[in-house]
């Protein structure tokens, strides 16, 4: 390890870290928003769910590198535009999370749904204030997978020039400089673990009811 290099390049490392955070976090947020809309629709119009699953399955099988390269052509963006990474990862995140949202909504007990309808909830408020909150544990479980996957996939973007901490790998490999690779690896790992911990904390905070057994 060349600690001197680390100290000398702390600004570069810091900005790559920040870039990495943004590149992985924004797609999770956008993907979740997309998945909530599509998932709720698929849950309501059940016939649409099986073909939808096939479609998201196909989307997810596209290799990420291929998508990073194809997207600029399709969107007319510059190859070095971070938007390509964001859009590609949003597609993956959304594809994974749709299933999670539908699975989460499926965990709402039929009696609860029936009671909500019978007590006089209209459809939209019922989904937003009763069904989705009950689906939170499942949705957060999905978010943890997607978040960690995104953090690792952002690095692939380095192969086309925008990849957050991944750029430390590409440049480290090119000049056979181990310290750079180790720093990139350690920070990626640290980022993934912290993000995961943050989500666990969020679940803890939002679903106090989910941890309760019967006390009586």
């Amino acid at each position: 390890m060349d600690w001197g290099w680390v100290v000398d390049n702390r600004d570069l490392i810091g900005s790559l870290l920040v870039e990495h955070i943004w590149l992985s976090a924004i797609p999770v947020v956008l993907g979740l928003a997309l998945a909530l809309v599509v998932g709720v629709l698929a849950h309501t119009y059940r016939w649409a769910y099986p073909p939808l699953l096939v479609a998201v399955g196909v989307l997810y099988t596209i290799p990420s590198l291929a998508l990073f390269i194809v997207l600029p052509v399709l969107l007319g963006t510059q190859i070095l535009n971070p938007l390509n990474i964001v859009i590609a990862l949003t597609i993956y995140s959304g594809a994974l999370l749709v299933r999670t949202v539908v699975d989460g909504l499926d965990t709402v007990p039929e009696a609860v749904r029936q009671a909500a309808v019978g007590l006089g909830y209209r459809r939209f408020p019922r989904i937003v204030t009763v069904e989705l909150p009950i689906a939170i544990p499942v949705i957060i479980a999905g978010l943890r997978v997607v978040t960690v996957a995104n953090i690792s996939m952002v690095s692939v973007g380095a192969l086309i020039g925008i990849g957050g901490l991944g750029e430390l790998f590409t440049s480290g490999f090119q000049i056979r400089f181990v310290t750079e690779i180790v720093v990139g690896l350690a920070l990626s790992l640290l980022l993934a673990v912290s993000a995961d911990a943050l989500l666990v904390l969020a679940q803890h905070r939002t679903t106090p009811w989910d941890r309760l057994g019967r006390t009586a």
Partner: protein
Amino acid sequence: MIEFESVSKRFPDGTVAVDDISFVAPKGQITVLVGPSGCGKTTSLAMVNRLVDVTSGRILVDGQDNSESDRVELRRGIGYVIQHSGLFPHRTVLDNVTTVPRLLGWDKAATRKRAYELLELVGLSAEQAKRYPAQLSGGQQQRVGVARALASDPPVMLMDEPFSAVDPVVRASLQDEFLRLQEHVGKTILFVTHDIDEAIKLGDRVAVFAQGGHLAQIDSPGDLLAAPANEFVASFVGRDRGYRRLSFLPCDDVAVQPAPTVRLGDRAAGEWRLAVDEDNRPLGWVAPDDGAVTQERLHPVGSTFTAAGSLRSALDAVLVSPAGLAIRLGTDGRVDGVVDHASLAAHHQAASEAAGTSQETR
């Protein structure tokens, strides 16, 4: 009041769930819909708050055709309790109870105050109000379900097998509490169950449904047991209906004899005697013997009855008495007489005939 006028429900696949049913659930009373599964009772209930739409006929809720109101507004005006409580697991007990008032946009403070009152009414503490449903027992959850249905003080309540999912002991106490609660709130209640005993116990009127969505008979529980309209109803209300009917026959005018009382220390010769204290309250039966009456010689009193009770309680009192005499107590708990088997039998015959429904001949 809920009125069914020639209501039918045919599902798109052709099955007839409810076939031309007409009946009235009177204001302030409990009307129980009972029958085997798949007989249309739950569908009938669901048509009242329009979870299911009628195919033909109409349902009036307090005089108004329920198909004319907005279905969501209609539901908010009708209490609804279901089998597995259907409590919202992510909300506290208090927030569950205030669901409908919040949907209606009522004042928060007043709503909370009412919710606490309702929880107390159904036997839950203020401390339990802050818990989540998963922290309560099944019976407590059902109580919260009832409180939630009452929160906006709707005149009409629909209850779909609310006590079916709890164990028999809890069910019995929930039923007793429910009857006490109803005395307090006086709602017009439509109550679905598959359990004929529950129907007989809770119903002011009992509607027996048969396969194919027919209404076989609607009557008071006493009349239902005394005079089933047909073979189906007779078999559905069950073997013990003669005995169970005793619960609905009064015993206020049964002929009582003076009680053969005796005090501790006295001698009880010749016949069974009832030891009483200075206030004439029963202590126990004493077998015929020449010796002095002592505490050790007393046989337990067992059950007693009062003039306000049913013939069933009087008969039970006679059956458990070692002397073959049922002890009647006044409202002050003092012995005011005894009755033997023969008088009860004679009284039963007279009461049955007076009810105009003498024993069915088979």
